[in-house]
């Protein structure tokens, strides 16, 4: 008998534990020709802000061994265009059983709330709040780098949101457990991690930074062991569900993330290498379950022994 792949996050049941990682899958439409979107447990959108964001200067991308750096700067058209142009497609996909998660970004608490308020009556299952954005009122520090700020923004988002909220944590902190707890205390329904690790690459021939922004976020298989460690630590610090991501390239990586404590997983950079990666990973998870006689995939969450 085929294993039950469903997982439940904050009361929302996904047909399987695999979702796209925000910013690596556009708003789904872009990949329509290349992958069967209805196979996905959930689709996570590109970050949406209150008004259009123009992002960083180029180059925005640099390849690194088994990974990449990006400094897109969250370019997006803002919530009004998002609702008008992207929601109909997403609503139709949702009708076919793929859950829709909208990723929200902001430079201030008010900006997050504007987006969240506008999404109240939209056919969206969950909100993912990206707190890796710099708080413009507090210098360059990201909301997710300070437990007090993180708790405050979580409380405010929770109060306004019609949908359950996932706080997406940044790994660029000393102790992820402190931030995971701050999100939980602020009322988060779930947390997701890891966002990208801040990195830098220099072209030694030209003696120049490869990215116009100088620094960028590292993602891809290169960060997978760091992500597994952080998901393990965070999931042991809180009792809310954890969505694990960071370098997942195979069903084995996804299962590893679940054993470390993730209830579901997201796949990002690997899609750039292989547009159909998520579907392959879902099939590989199912094959793993079969091989190990696992009836319900959710049994894997946190099931690492010793």
């Amino acid at each position: 008998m085929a294993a039950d792949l469903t997982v439940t996050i904050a009361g929302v049941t996904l047909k399987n534990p695999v979702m796209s990682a925000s910013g690596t899958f556009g708003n789904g439409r872009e990949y329509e020709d290349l992958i069967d979107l209805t196979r996905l447990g959930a689709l996570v959108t590109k970050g949406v802000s209150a008004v259009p964001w123009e992002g960083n200067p180029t180059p925005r991308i640099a390849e690194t061994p088994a990974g990449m750096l990006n400094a897109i700067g969250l370019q997006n058209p803002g919530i009004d265009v998002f609702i008008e142009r992207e929601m109909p497609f997403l609503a139709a996909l949702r009708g076919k059983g793929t859950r829709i998660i909208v990723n929200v970004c902001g430079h201030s608490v008010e900006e997050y709330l504007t987006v969240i308020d506008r999404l109240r009556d939209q056919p969206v299952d969950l909100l993912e709040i990206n707190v890796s954005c710099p708080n413009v009122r507090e210098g360059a520090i990201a909301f997710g780098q300070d437990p007090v700020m993180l708790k405050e923004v979580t409380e405010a988002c929770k109060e306004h949101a019609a949908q359950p909220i996932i706080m997406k944590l940044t790994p660029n902190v000393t102790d992820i457990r402190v931030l995971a707890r701050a999100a939980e205390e602020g009322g988060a329904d779930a947390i997701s991690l890891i966002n990208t690790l801040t990195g830098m690459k220099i072209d030694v021939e030209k003696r120049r930074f490869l990215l116009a922004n100088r620094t960028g976020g590292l993602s891809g298989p290169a960060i997978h062991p760091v992500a597994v460690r952080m998901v393990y630590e965070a999931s042991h610090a809180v009792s809310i569900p954890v969505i694990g991501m960071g370098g997942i390239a195979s069903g084995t990586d996804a299962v590893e993330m679940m054993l470390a404590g993730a209830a579901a997983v997201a796949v990002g950079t690997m899609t750039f290498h292989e547009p159909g990666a998520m579907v392959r990973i879902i099939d590989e998870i199912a094959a793993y379950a079969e091989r190990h006689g696992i009836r319900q995939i959710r049994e894997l969450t946190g099931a690492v022994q010793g």
Partner: protein
Amino acid sequence: MNESKDRRIREATARVIRQEELTEGICSLVLETGLADDAQPGQFVNLYCTDGARLLPRPISICDASEGTLRLVYRVVGGGTGELSALAAGDTVRMTGCLGNGYDLTAAAGKRVIAVGGGLGIPPMLFLMRLLEADRSAGGPASLTAVLGYRDLRTVFLRDDFDRFGSVVTASDDGSVGYHGTVVDAIREEKLACDVLYACGPMPMLRALARFAEEQRQTGKDIKCYVSLEERMACGIGACLGCVTRTAAVDEHSRVHNARICVEGPVFEVSEIAWD
């Protein structure tokens, strides 16, 4: 930056028919793939490496396409193109395509056309010239000239392939082939009449062409100049927003001034771009 209406992007595993080195470090790769069937000049394909350390696709312009076969001409500059250069007949390579908008060939109807290629911008001009030449009798361009820029004699490649499709003018940085100077110098000195320019090449060349087109417009001439841009890419299909260029007007996708080179481009009319 007209987004092509019928964007059918597919992933395919292509089979290598043959590969040869045209000149030192520049390879011509002929592939058997169904992706060739709806290829347009100015479009590109994204090739994936097999070395797992190299995750991102390598964008390469389509140098020519006919039913079932695709020709790519590229320079070996790093690990990814190095891997490509090792492919031999019978090997396979995974790719997505065809990507981007391509050149607006309808603009050529009844016009005097110049195709300008500089260095590794030369390959896509071959496909463009071939299609435009085939159109000559059927409402295509009134005249057709290729202006090709090389660094020097040693780096000349594809030059003879162009002879079949119109007159060819060459230029080189050191004067060892054709005009001593840039392609724009060659166009000025030859007093080449043109209403439509199609170009691909390094940024300084494209800037110079944009200035040239602007000067012509100042004198009241109606001239169109289409250029193909490059940027680092992660997806090639409009999802990551890595590959943008500054545009004069607010872009369709993000409503800022940053259009995606992989979807709204790589070809833009020069007036669409914010050159400063």
